[in-house]
């Protein structure tokens, strides 16, 4: 039976349907999860999708962090379940303290939407094992508050421990410190990523299929467990 990957829908989520589609194309069974439930429906991995949960009120991800289902998501993440936060999902993971740092408004103050080249630096996380370290991929990027910030000690620790999952190549699109596009936790099961791999899983609708590896990686991690 194919592993089940849950995708949480918050009020204001935009990319939950695309994330479920990416899960299906990768070969897993997508499961729609609802923010107001306390039920993960037995999924093997979880995606927090992009969008503007709760209208980005207060701070991006700040209200979503206290959504009912986040109690279960945080417990699952701490138990080793693979969790991927994309864009707003990344912001929610930072607000939840599952990942260090925070995402602030783009330094150039405008929303950016473009195909973005990334270099995968850590190919041993639950979400990047199907890539090779140093590989470059192109996936869409679209954010207004995508600038990753953390204090110097945290940045040094992330780099020193190999927890920078992906970095921007060919120009920093949002002022992220040290060109960081994605990070992981110490265990490598929780990954936050500002760009959108779920929009690059089919030739017809994206810049290519180089985002699919994030979703097949989770499948590989689950099958080999």
């Amino acid at each position, binding site marked *: 039976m194919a592993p089940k990957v849950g995708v949480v829908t918050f009020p204001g989520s935009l990319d939950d349907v695309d994330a479920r589609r990416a899960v299906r194309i990768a070969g897993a069974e997508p499961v729609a999860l609802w923010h107001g439930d306390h039920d993960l429906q037995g999924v093997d991995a979880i995606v927090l999708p992009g969008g503007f949960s709760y209208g980005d009120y207060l701070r991006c991800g*700040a209200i979503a962090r206290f959504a009912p289902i986040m109690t279960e998501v945080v417990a699952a993440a701490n138990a080793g379940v693979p969790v991927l936060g994309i864009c707003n999902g990344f912001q929610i993971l930072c607000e939840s303290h599952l990942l*260090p740092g*925070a995402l*602030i*408004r783009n330094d150039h103050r405008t929303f950016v939407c473009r195909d973005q080249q990334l270099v995968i630096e850590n190919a041993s996380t639950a979400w990047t094992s199907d890539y090779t370290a140093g590989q470059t991929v192109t996936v869409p990027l679209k954010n207004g508050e995508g600038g990753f910030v953390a204090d110097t000690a945290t940045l040094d620790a992330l780099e020193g421990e190999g927890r920078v999952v992906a970095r921007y190549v060919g120009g920093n699109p949002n002022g992220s410190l040290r060109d960081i596009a994605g990070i992981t936790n110490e265990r490598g099961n929780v990954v936050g990523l500002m760009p959108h791999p779920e929009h690059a899983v089919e030739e017809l609708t994206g810049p290519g299929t180089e985002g699919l590896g994030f979703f097949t990686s989770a499948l590989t991690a689950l099958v080999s467990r």
Partner: protein
Amino acid sequence: MPRVIVDVMPKPEILDPQGKAVHGALPRLGFHGITDVRQGKRFELEVDAADEATLAEIAKVAETLLSNPVIEDYTVRVEG
């Protein structure tokens, strides 16, 4: 009814693009004496009594929800 004010500001070392945008608009409007602008948030909390226990609770609210301590500082004060 007492009102408690929580001010939340971006930490000094954190870039504040909104404040910069406001600052950038000032010369265009003919205001030239302002050298920097930082933009924050002000929360007004109505409480039954601004006693020590309530203020301690509000400090907790400020730390867990109203601000993100990674990027922001907050202050709590009673108005009036």
